């Protein structure tokens, strides 16, 4: 049984009305002329019985009329098997599939977790009338979009998150934006706990610091070792395009940036160039370059945008040159000064048939912002698994159960175009109220007083 308008229950206070009427109506007792009062017992006068209700049957009928009306207003809907099926047919699901690195781990039955997750997502989608699948490495960020899509749909909405639910994947705060009428289903993919050690490499110049880490839900064991790397961080696809007078300052910035360790391996397949203000072909590059469209390029831009060191240093930077030197509106602004002027703008061009990400710097090549930019680019190029993805523990079943909830039927009833699926049973109660009203009218008018139904004494028989 569900209630379409639970506030209507407040109407039950009206039940006090018939009780009051029955208590107070005594004040308007009808006057009857009677031959003599000598046989009436004085001790049975009414004032001694002021609180006594009379006509209890009539009172019960009147109270029932009001109760039936109140329950009808509350729009009850009895959940029958047919209705459940009908409502089930209107189910709409938005499925968020976790594709983060932790989902690359093996499941308990073998195979990759992400593959199992995709198979399960397909099965869940097949059960719903309509569905949408979002694959993301950050499930919390996809929830808002999923909810937005559900709001445009008719029927019972349900948000499904398919993940291994590694600790930190999802929290109650992430689900706070989900409306209460939308159901939440959290589908766990069971993965094996990692048993082999993982080598975490931090590269600084030619030095690699290797941390051999063994992670268990209970403990983390790390063995450190140092080695000379064959690859230099600067000897790769990152090029600094600076003018003659800027070369030294740009190089100083690079060296400063190398003091920050970067987790190996780095992306060496894609070319990235930082274009400094004094670079000779800068104007040409600005003219010919376009908006970054390649997936790898946009990912790096997104990581740069999220880099806190670059963001903070940009805020306090002073733009070295005007942005009027080229059309930067076609590029993506990576960082800005506190005044809102761009300090780094990302664009893309093709060099020797390969795509290249161009980061136009609007600050001095030897500035702190410049060093922060190089550091951020090195960090963004890291292909190492984020440390958070190595977390071996997962959210407990109890936590997931607390977050889970069923989609509301009444919401489906309101949204659904199929009115029979969620129709209220209130009409039957209205009918009952009408019948009771007729009964009450009949009782008031036609029911003989109880005393008249008693057999009369025949005075003559008594006399005889």
């Amino acid at each position, binding site marked *: 049984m569900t209630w379409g308008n639970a506030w209507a229950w407040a109407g039950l206070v009206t039940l006090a009305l018939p009780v009051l009427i029955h208590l107070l109506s*005594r004040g308007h*007792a*009808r*006057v*009857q*002329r*009677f*031959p*003599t*009062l*000598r*046989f*009436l*017992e004085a001790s*049975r*006068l*009414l*004032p001694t*019985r002021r609180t*006594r209700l*009379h*006509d209890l049957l009539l009172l019960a009928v009147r109270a029932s009329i009001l109760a039936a009306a109140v329950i009808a207003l509350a729009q009850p809907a009895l959940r029958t098997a047919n209705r459940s099926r009908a409502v089930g047919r209107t189910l709409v699901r938005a499925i968020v599939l976790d594709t983060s690195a932790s989902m690359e781990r093996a499941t308990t039955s073998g195979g990759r977790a992400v593959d199992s997750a995709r198979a399960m997502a397909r099965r869940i989608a097949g059960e719903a009338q309509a569905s949408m699948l979002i694959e993301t490495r950050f499930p919390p960020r996809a929830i808002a979009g999923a909810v937005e899509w559900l709001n445009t749909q008719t029927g019972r909405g349900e948000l499904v998150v398919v993940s291994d639910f590694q600790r930190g994947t999802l929290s109650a705060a992430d689900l706070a934006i989900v409306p209460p009428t939308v159901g939440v289903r959290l589908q766990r993919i069971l993965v094996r706990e990692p048993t082999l050690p993982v080598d975490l490499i931090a590269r600084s110049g030619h030095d690699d610091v290797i941390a051999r880490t063994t992670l268990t839900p209970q403990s983390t064991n790390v063995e450190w070792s140092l080695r000379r790397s064959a690859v230099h961080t600067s000897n790769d696809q990152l090029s600094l395009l600076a003018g003659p007078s800027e070369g030294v300052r740009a190089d100083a910035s690079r060296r400063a940036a190398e003091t920050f360790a970067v987790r190996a391996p780095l992306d060496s397949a894609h070319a990235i160039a930082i274009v400094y203000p004094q670079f000779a072909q800068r104007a040409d590059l600005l003219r010919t370059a376009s908006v970054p469209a390649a997936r790898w390029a946009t990912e790096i831009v997104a990581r740069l945008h999220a880099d806190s060191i670059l963001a903070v240093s940009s805020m306090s930077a002073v733009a070295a040159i005007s942005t009027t030197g080229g059309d930067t509106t076609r590029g993506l602004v990576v960082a800005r000064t506190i005044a809102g002027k761009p300090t780094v703008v990302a664009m893309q061009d093709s060099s020797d048939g390969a795509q290249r990400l161009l980061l136009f710097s609007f600050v001095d090549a030897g500035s702190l912002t410049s060093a922060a930019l190089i550091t951020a680019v090195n960090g963004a190029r890291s292909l190492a698994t984020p440390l958070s993805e190595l977390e071996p523990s997962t959210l407990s079943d109890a936590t997931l159960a607390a977050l889970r909830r069923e989609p509301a039927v009444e919401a489906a009833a309101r949204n659904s175009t199929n009115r029979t699926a969620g129709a209220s049973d209130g009409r039957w109660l209205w009918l009952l109220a009408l019948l009771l009203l007729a009964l009450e009218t009949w009782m008031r008018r036609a029911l003989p*007083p*109880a*005393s*008249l139904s*008693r057999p*009369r*004494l*025949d*005075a*003559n028989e*008594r*006399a*005889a």
Partner: protein
Amino acid sequence: MSALSPTVVAAIDDLELAARIVVEGLRTGGHRSPFHGYSTEFRQHRPYRAGDDLKYLDWKLFARSDRLYTRQFRETTNLSVMIVLDTSASMAFPPEGVSKCQYGQIVAAALSYLVSEQGHAVGLMTMDAGKLSYVAARGGRQHLRALLARIDRFTPAGAWDPARVIARSAQLLQRRGVVIVISDFYDAEEETRREMRRVAQRGHDVAMLQLISPSEMELPYTDHVELEDLESGERRLVDATTIAPAYHDAIHDFIARCRGNALRDGVDYALMSTATPPETALRDYLLRRSRGLAAGHAPRAVQK
């Protein structure tokens, strides 16, 4: 002839006609007169037998013939019947249907008709607006009509003083006669009883016809009702459902007390319900009275 309901009889405007209808119904039984007069008219002599009352010996005949003869008398028609009718406000109950007053008027008229038809004298005593209203006991057709017209005119109002009315009616009887009191006997219970007993002790034949309506017996109300006394105007708010059992006990006790007192005091008693056809009620009463006469209980007819 089937008995007409009280409603039908009460609906007949002409009280004489109504009385005649009731009396015609009574005659179907073919019983003898329930009222016995005094034997004042000489009929014959018969030889004295041992045990005869010496006062009926004809001393003059004894002087002439030197034989003892007892005088015998023929029954005459000069019985006087006084009807005392209660017209107090309590007789106006019930407001719907036949009231006790209407019923009493029919019974009084029927009795008057019956008594007059049998050649007796009949009179009326009642109280109208606090004053005694009196019609002397006489026989004859014209007197009967005047009497019925007087009975018909009464409307129940105010209170009455039953002891005074009964006492006065007995005083006005020329000699020993019959006093029939038609009332609900709610007023001055003890005084009324005392007066009826006194009248009976003085040699009159006293009859007590108590009228009651079924509504009074049953208290036909539920829940809260404000009852207004028809005579005093006093109002009392009661829960009828609650007090009904006690009320029933009280009114049944009252009726039983009235009947018991009447029996003890030598007063003829009958309870008449307004729901019973008047001729049925009267026939039952008169038959019972006749049986009582035959058994030698009630009649106070004397030999002279």
